[in-house]
């Protein structure tokens, strides 16, 4: 396989890792005002992701860094072209990260309330905007001969892009609700499961429309198979939730999100950022890539360290495998 193809796959893996992992912690954040009845339950929710959210977010940083190294032109066009959405995502991730750390530092309801707003805002914005951004990458955006994005923010707010945003938003809410159901005990566990089913049906409908639309836009036989598997995983997951198999249900949304993102990347290949202005201006794995020397070096580093990273992250999830309920939450400072 060409090294550029290897790196296209690796970057796809990093984004898949990011969406399946941070997807549920965005979901937990968005559901904070919905699932929790009081401060103690809100703390139960936040503590389910407490030890892991930061590690989940590093998948984004690694995806960004890997794109910079392996496909500098893609990184440059994408990040400067999607300036405003990325600015909003950055603001959201900043206030969200600080909120987790600072929320419990003062025993005041007003204080905690403001940080809750930060968590909610900080989870909704990226959950929506990553979907809009990815849908637009797949759909293609106006790019000129110098590989510069020539559209505006309104270019990105097309129906397909907005639908993509709603799909990630609703999938992440479902994913997060199932994570809460899997990781907590007590009343909140049942509430989370019930909500996952309700939102899950909406997410499934939106996702199927989006995936069919995507299939029409960029599809091949391979993407069709992947999208069907993704849909089956989602439906299977919801079925498992219905009969009370929370672990299986979470595995279902985990797989569904992973497969859907994989399908988007398969549909994209060999482009990395198609141009709607002129096909000749499309960024591809070949014309956007770094040199073979850099790619080879990075391949060695990735081959050695990715398994190690996955290993110790999995170990962390195992260490913190116990369910949390309200009586595990110590009194506030």
């Amino acid at each position, binding site marked *: 396989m060409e090294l550029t193809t290897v790196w296209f796959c690796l970057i796809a893996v990093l984004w898949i890792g990011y969406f399946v992992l941070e997807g549920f912690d965005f979901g937990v954040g968005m559901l904070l005002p919905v699932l929790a009845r009081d401060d103690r339950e809100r703390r139960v929710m936040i503590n389910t992701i407490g030890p892991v959210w*930061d590690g989940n977010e590093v998948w984004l940083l690694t995806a960004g*860094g890997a794109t910079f190294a392996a496909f500098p032109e893609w990184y440059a066009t994408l990040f400067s072209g999607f300036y405003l959405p990325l600015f909003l995502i950055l603001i959201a991730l900043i206030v969200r990260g600080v909120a987790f750390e600072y929320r419990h530092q003062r025993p005041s309801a007003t204080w905690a309330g403001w940080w809750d707003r930060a968590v909610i805002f900080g989870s909704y914005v990226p959950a929506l905007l990553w979907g809009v951004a990815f849908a637009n990458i797949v759909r293609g955006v106006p790019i000129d001969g110098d590989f510069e994005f020539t559209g505006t923010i309104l270019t990105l707010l097309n129906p397909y892009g907005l639908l993509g945003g709603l799909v990630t938003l609703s999938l992440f809410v479902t994913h997060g609700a199932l994570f809460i159901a899997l990781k907590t005990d007590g009343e909140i566990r049942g509430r989370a499961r019930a909500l996952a089913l309700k939102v899950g049906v909406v997410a499934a409908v939106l996702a199927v429309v989006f995936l069919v639309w995507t299939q029409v836009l960029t599809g091949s036989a391979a993407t069709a198979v992947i999208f069907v598997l993704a849909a089956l995983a989602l439906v299977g997951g919801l079925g498992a939730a219905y009969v009370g198999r929370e672990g299986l249900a979470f595995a279902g949304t985990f797989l569904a999100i992973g497969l859907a993102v994989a399908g988007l990347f398969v549909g994209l290949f060999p482009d990395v950022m198609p141009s709607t202005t002129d096909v000749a201006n499309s960024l591809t794995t070949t014309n956007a890539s770094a040199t073979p020397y850099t790619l080879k070096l990075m391949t060695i580093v990735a081959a050695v360290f990715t398994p190690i990273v996955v290993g110790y992250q999995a170990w962390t999830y195992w260490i913190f495998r116990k369910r949390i309920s309200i009586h595990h939450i110590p009194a506030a400072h």
Partner: protein
Amino acid sequence: MTAVDSVLELARWQFGIVTVYHFLFVPLTVGLTMLVAVLETIWLRTKNPEWLRLTKFFSKLFLINFALGVVTGIVQEFQFGMTWSDYSRFVGDVFGAPLAIEALLAFFLESTFLGLWIFGWDKLPRALHNACMWIVHLGTLASSWFILAANSWMQHPVGYKFNEVTGRAELTDFWAVMFNKVQLGTFPHVILAAYLTSAAFMLGILGWLYLRRPGLDGADRPMHRRGMVLAAWIMVVSGLGVAISGDVQGKIMTEVQPMKMAAAEALWETSDSCAPFSVLTIGTRDGKHEKWALEVPCVLSFLGTGTFDGKVEGIYDLQEKYRATYGATPGETYYSPGDYTPNIPVTYWTFRWMMGLGVVGGLVGLAVLWLTRRGRTPTGFVGRVLPALAISAPVMVLLGNSMGWIFTEMGRQPWVVFGVLTTAQGVSPGVEPWEVWMSLLGFTLLYAVLAVIEVGLLMKYVKKAPDPFVEPPSPSLRGSESDADEPMNFAY
């Protein structure tokens, strides 16, 4: 002013603001992970409860800092593509690799093992728990290595070739980039400065508690004192290291970026031997016509070359030389054509403030060691002044760090990659001024609000002083079901 010009101005201000702000937290993170790991190790070795209390106290303060360091770090990675897309296209092949490796090797390590450390008191055996913080510290060192190698490449590009066809820099020798001679001077300088910063932070807080609040809990005074003296020792040793590594850096800089050295000194005319070191100058704004100056003879020659009669090139001569080498075009959009001189007042003063603040801050450590020698307690006037002095040490060192970075980045101008790409050539061509205005204001306002909140929290916990000792659980990895319903040892 054309559109590109104002995007360039705004993008530079934005980069400066978010980077200087981010780097307030970085040295504290690098240094405090080391200090917290040391404190926990001492506790495990001595079983003296005081060290555990200090571990918990400083880890709380550390986490308040770390949160801001992490979230502002995301901006760092994104803004290369957002506001400096042409720079990213040009250097991606060389500069992207250390960034990606940094994320894969270091960020995952830091975030995952810090999560384990924070929430793992009742999950991990004690030695393994302590090992987690040491691993986090290793992660911070690895992170520093890669990002400083990337920066060193911008100061002194090596291990690459320029591809005429694509118009990009291409990596040819990764190890040359990793062991760039600028990197070999910069890494120890930055890491030792981080140790100095965090030790000053510890000394400032414990010094203040020790002398200012003896009534808080008289029984805790020996603990505050012991921690303060430990911090003072680390300050003195790392401070000495900062000075030595800075000297090495100065000599490398004179060799590879002579203009930066000349700009640091506002040395307009070449000095063939025995160049004086200027301590202070009063002059016109451009620094060209000094009215009064305090100079120490021959010291600049020594700083730059290692001998007291070494030749140090001046700005005028270097300017001519650079014009001959690089032509008149590169500087044209931002600087006047052919102008290869950085902003002299900025480089001159930041260089002085960096050294002055670092030295004075470091000397506070020495003063504390002297005043507390052989069991002495500072009383009277000294006892009253010392708390203020102690608490100002971390402020001085932090400002010194900022000055150092402003100097080294401004001293490289008009280049973004020295001798290869100008800053003006690196800016994003497709981004609109209003977009950068928005992000510049947005980040600045948000950062200002977060700074106020952060300082407020730090002050709250400093005033509370270390919590009383509570024996932490001593779990085994297999875990036991009997403690399943205990409240968590730590929770958000």
